[in-house]
């Protein structure tokens, strides 16, 4: 049904199907009906909305499902005006919106169903996912990833003036295995250039804070280093979700981190304020729904007005 084997695919695809969640690919606007709705009415809803299954809910909770096969049977056997509650499927296999897409793929293979209702933690119906949603969701995400890789390759390909270094790193959301690698690389470049230890430390801390922000809070992005004799510039550019309140984000102790991020030792609400603290120049721009750009500069040669 979905030509992807979750156990034997290229690592980039595996990474994608584990990183993407069901809520990222599902259809969220689901037409559902109450259980006393007639099958005839459901047939009309299917026709008008071009869907092959309608969830039946009671107080927002999913209680059953009527498929196009149920409608055909009702027409054939003459009970099309009966209420849904009499004929709906009650033994449903559902997916949770926080499950990885790999789980949805396995479920399609295992049950051979055309669709799965999606519920949230409160067991409320929040969407429906079809095999078509999976393939189109993966294609869109692969397209986005390839565009990002092309952008990085183009940036890397531009010639570096003598004495200047430019590096671009892709940083993935929740990728704790690689989190910090880019900042380690920055520190090594500064070490190799003989930069003062205190300045190495300032640049490395700024970079690491921004890198962990990309991993913990963004949908993924890029960390870009520009280094010359005068300064180290660190840019973090992500694809969302954006920061609704910049003033709050710059307040020490304010954090949107969940318990999981805190259990890893982060999420104290110090990331952006600390980046600003160790930087000689700092700029933050963010648009909700589009993304965030942060630029932090550490002067490698003293300049008037620099912090001690």
């Amino acid at each position, binding site marked *: 049904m979905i030509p992807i084997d979750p156990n034997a695919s290229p690592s980039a695809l595996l990474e994608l199907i584990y990183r993407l969640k069901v809520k990222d690919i599902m259809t969220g606007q689901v037409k559902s009906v109450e259980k006393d709705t007639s099958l005839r009415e459901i047939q009309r809803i299917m026709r008008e909305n071009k869907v092959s299954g309608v969830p039946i809910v009671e107080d927002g909770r999913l209680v059953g499902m009527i498929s196009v096969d149920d409608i055909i049977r009702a027409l054939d056997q003459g009970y099309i005006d009966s209420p849904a509650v009499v004929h709906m499927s009650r033994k449903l296999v559902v997916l949770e919106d926080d499950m990885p897409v790999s789980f949805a793929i396995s479920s399609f293979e295992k049950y051979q169903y055309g669709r799965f209702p999606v519920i949230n933690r409160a067991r409320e119906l929040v969407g429906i996912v079809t095999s078509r949603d999976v393939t189109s969701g993966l294609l869109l995400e692969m397209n986005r990833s390839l565009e990002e890789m092309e952008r990085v390759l183009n940036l890397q390909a531009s010639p570096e003036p003598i004495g200047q270094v430019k590096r671009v790193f892709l940083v993935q959301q929740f990728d*704790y*295995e690689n*989190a*910090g690698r880019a*900042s*380690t690389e920055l*520190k090594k470049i500064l070490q190799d250039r003989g930069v003062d*230890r*205190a300045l*190495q*430390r300032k640049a*490395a*801390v700024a*970079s*690491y*804070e921004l890198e*962990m922000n990309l991993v913990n809070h963004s949908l993924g992005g890029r960390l870009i280093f520009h280094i010359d004799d005068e300064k180290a510039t660190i840019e973090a550019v992500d694809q969302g979700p954006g920061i609704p309140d910049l003033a709050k984000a710059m307040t020490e102790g304010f954090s949107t981190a969940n318990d999981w991020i*805190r259990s*890893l*030792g*982060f*999420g*104290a*609400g*110090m*990331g952006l304020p*600390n980046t600003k*603290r160790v930087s000689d120049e700092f700029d933050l721009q963010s648009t909700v729904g589009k993304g965030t750009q942060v630029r932090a500069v550490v002067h490698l040669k003293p300049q008037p007005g620099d912090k001690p």
Partner: protein
Amino acid sequence: MTFDQVLEAVSGEPAYRSSRWATQTVDHVVTCDLMSDVLVTDHDEILLVTSLPSDQVARTADMVGACGVVLVNGKPPQPSLVELCTHLDLTLILSPLGSFEASWRLGQRLLGRV
């Protein structure tokens, strides 16, 4: 305080000895499980005492220029943490003591009371 003295103070075992083991002097100790807080410390060459056994401990220690890490509570380190400490040439010591006991003993040693 030398690393040998640190080892004795925390009743520890070295999981990795950095190339500076014999020459390094430890003057500041920071005990913390929240890496965000470690990143705001301003002392150079700190010894980080923590009960968090993840890779990010080594990354954080490297960023702030720490000289080593003491992993307390007898927690076994993740293999990747030992690998990373080796790669970064960062001393990693394992201690069966709790955070408070290890910190108190290191403090006594730093203050010359032992």
